């Protein structure tokens, strides 16, 4: 892990997912599969060996019929800033071979597939189960290899992979801006595949540090929260919900505690 001494956090790309708008349709997952060359196999029903960079969890309030409510929570990699927000997400510091790293320019956590040797320590470290292991060699049947996206390298058996916030799209947008002699990327120039695929517009993506980006305002909404915030992982994926029980399910609370009223050890600094 290379510390940047001239540390200036120019960008902090993040996501705000409106759970009041998420219908659980799965378009984000499919959009991600096709953008990122995610493989598939004949049986994908064991979700613990199924590679998903973004996975939708369905939760219920457990109340009896007809008071039951359900909510879908799409979970990409949370791109944690980590304790103290200095680029020490739970997974990065544990990787013995620097195969995953925190990019100080974007806040995005990379995964170098050809560097990873598959120790899976990062998976043990990630409370969100965002990291997936290639238990099998990927196989694209019939002519399906033809649809693979050349901007994202297919992974091999035995390595860990995870959501990259479509980093290749960032690279492409940045290269384009560079050629056009621009410093800044417009908000719509760099969007993740899932945000684009979401048919109800529940996923908003942008620079959390940029006041002109939609995510900046959304993350400060009173409806906003993050998953497992109390662990001090400092995720860059925010959620919006108007339902109290959903908010409570998003973290762990002792019986007497109320979500939103816990004094957090780490306060966000701007």
């Amino acid at each position: 892990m290379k510390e940047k001494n001239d540390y200036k956090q120019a960008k902090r790309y993040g996501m705000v997912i409106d759970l009041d708008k998420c219908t659980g349709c799965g378009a984000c997952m499919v959009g991600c599969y096709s953008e990122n060359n995610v493989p598939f196999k004949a049986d994908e029903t064991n979700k613990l060996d199924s590679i998903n960079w973004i996975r939708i969890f369905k939760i219920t309030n457990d109340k009896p019929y007809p008071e039951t409510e359900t909510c879908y929570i799409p979970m990409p990699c949370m791109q944690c800033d980590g304790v103290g927000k200095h680029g020490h997400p739970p997974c990065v510091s544990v990787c013995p071979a620097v195969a995953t790293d925190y990019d100080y320019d974007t806040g995005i956590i990379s995964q170098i597939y050809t560097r990873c040797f598959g120790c899976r320590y990062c998976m043990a470290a990630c409370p969100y189960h965002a990291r997936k292991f290639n238990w099998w060699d990927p196989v694209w049947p019939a002519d399906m290899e033809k649809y693979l996206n050349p901007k994202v390298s297919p992974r091999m058996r035995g390595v860990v992979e995870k959501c990259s916030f479509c980093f290749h799209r960032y690279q492409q947008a940045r290269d384009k801006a560079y050629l056009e002699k621009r410093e800044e990327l417009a908000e719509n120039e760099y969007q993740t595949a899932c945000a684009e695929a979401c048919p109800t517009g529940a996923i908003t993506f942008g620079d959390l540090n940029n006041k002109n980006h939609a995510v900046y305002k959304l993350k400060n909404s009173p409806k906003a929260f993050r998953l497992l915030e109390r662990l001090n992982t400092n995720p860059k994926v925010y959620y919006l919900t108007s339902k109290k029980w959903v908010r409570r399910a998003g973290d762990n609370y002792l019986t007497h505690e109320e979500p939103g009223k816990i004094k957090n050890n780490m306060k966000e600094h701007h």
Partner: protein
Amino acid sequence: MKIDRRSFLSYTTAAVLGGTAGSMLTPAPWKLIDDAAIWTQNWPWTPVPEDGEVTYKKSVCTLCPGGCGITVRLVNGRPIKIEGSKEYPVNKGSLCPMGISGLQYLYGPSRVTSPLKREGKRGEGKWKKVSWDEALAAVTKKLSELRATGRSQSVVCLTGSDRGTIPNLIDRFLTVYGSPNFIRSSTAQDAIEQAIYLTQGKQGTPIFDIENANFILSFGSGILDGWGSPGRLFNLYGGLKPTKTIIQIEPRLSDTAAMANQWVGINPGTETALALGLAHVIIKKSLYDKNFVENFAFGFDDWTDEDGKTHDGFSTMVKNFTPEKVAQITGIDKTEIVSLARNFARASKPIAINGRGQGDVPGSIDESLAVQSLNALVGNINKPGGISAIPDSNYAKWPEVTIDEVASKGRQQPRIDGAGSEQFPNTRFLLNRLPEILNKTKDESPVQALLVTAANPLYTLPDTASTKKAFDRIPFIVSFSPYMDETAAYADYILPNHSYLERLQEVPTDAGISRQVIGLAKPVVQPIYDTKHVGDSFILIAKALGGFISNAFPWNNYEGFLKETLKDQWRELNRKGMIEIENNTPEPLAYTFNTVSGKFEFYPTARNTAQPKNRSALPSYTPVPIEGDIQRFQLVLIPYDTIRLASNNIANSPFMTKTIDDTVLKKQTGMVEINPTTARGLGLKEGSTALLTTPKGKATVKIHLFEGIMPGLIAIPKGLGHTAYNKFLANKGTNFNDLIGPIEDPGSGLDMAWGIRAKLIRI
């Protein structure tokens, strides 16, 4: 010096050790390690996709009738990604998982890559690759034989849609060939269409202007589960949340219900009673649109016919449906019914919609009529935010056909499915009746040849076993499917169509939008296999049949046919990828209806009430008699739809199946949802394996406990249980259609089954 054995060994050991140590100092071992690592980073079996120039092509998705605009990203001309097209007015960039995973259909293992001729028994899976000439000649030979022996009417063409140039081309073929039996699959739209026809006198595509409504009362319509055009509705939902209210009425907490402002749990199959109960409250509290009802409606009050006989009007009839009685029928609290009615009537732009789940099953005409009546009560007809019907677009104009005597004779024969007959005068297609008719006929099957395109009846028709039996009676089955679906797998010949991304086709957008959109699906890639456009296949067959049939198809191919069809519009369509036709919604007060009374008919005089003779044509509630003895089958099985499962003629892509939760499918076994209280009584737990039995069949299932389903019900997802396609889909879960049979609506003949009695036994 003498070298004995011991010192020899010593020297050898020393040499080996020394050699090893020495070579560690050379670059060789390190280079080898590095090479090994590089090799693992580029396993030869891990593909490296070719990079190149990125281009985009626009087209329209035809995987379902939704007609969403798509943008295909290509690298060096190779399609690599499909995204929703932001400029396309139907979906405005939104796309369902099926649409996004479209490339898996193009390149997938289910493609039929060349014409095939059946070798083994039907459905055995033994095929012989044949040339197009051979395949077309075989079909032509069969058709000309049937024609020569005066049995031209026994040729049935089965399609997924009757709109657009491809179905029209096929219908034209049947006209000159001499068969009245053009059949398309039925959906809830058929019942709604008929209800609109009966009340408004207009034949056309129903439009629900949800865009402009602000209170959506949905009688089980899965507007977020694949009902209508998913791209359009998801897009709409994303935008409408704060200002609009959605009320979802159904016995299971579907994804639509979960996202609705209010979910009303209802006893399944009693939606009609609720609609009439709501009407009762609205009328009783005088909340209805008096201007509309008094000036533009007929049959609201009691009326007297020409013979002097007095008939109950709608307002009198609904008096039977008091909130108390409806509460008893539907299981919904009385006060809830009253407040629902009040909220609906008081909303500034309310709309009531129906068609359960994705709307695959028509349902009873009573239900659709009751819902239409609700809309009429709030004066919500033919205006923004309301319901209307647009007549089929008349852009398709062709030279008149001249037909010979054989064709004329054949064309005049009654339709095999009974649609349009005296029994079902207002119904156009009745595919659901076909299996029973075939199975009942003792002598020669009335269907001698079945040509299927864009339909998969062996999967989608209820009672799969009897459908299969019926198909066994058809001597000649031809499938034009690009994919090895259940029907293709059971055919004698497969003449594979191009997949949707290789095919030219205009796409009139079905149900819904207040403007009509005609899109153009343009090939984004040259056909990658030895396939042929289904339109071309029909033109070639027509040409080979000769005579008048050939004359009716003067075009070289489908493209020529399409261009000529669209005439002036072709250029615009080709350039812009779509044409928008503004729908002239009448001014609110200029209600025009083509009914006998010239008004909106609460009392649909054109309705065929069949038996008994004196029955009122008013919508009424009689419980749909679902199959099964209540003693033997104490539970009720209902299907549910989810957008992650395609239950229509084109099945799930591997990506879609990958998204399915482990509470829906576990390995190869499908899971059913039951309420924990129901499970307790049956000794079932989460994940238990059980035998699900209905009067129609049985299946091994696993149990998923879900509080959000009414006790006493079992819910099974539609879209699983395929037997064909590929290993990513086949033999996973249960096909709901294996477990249910159709129930004919007595007035329309359409299937109105919403469930079936069932039992669950732990195994």
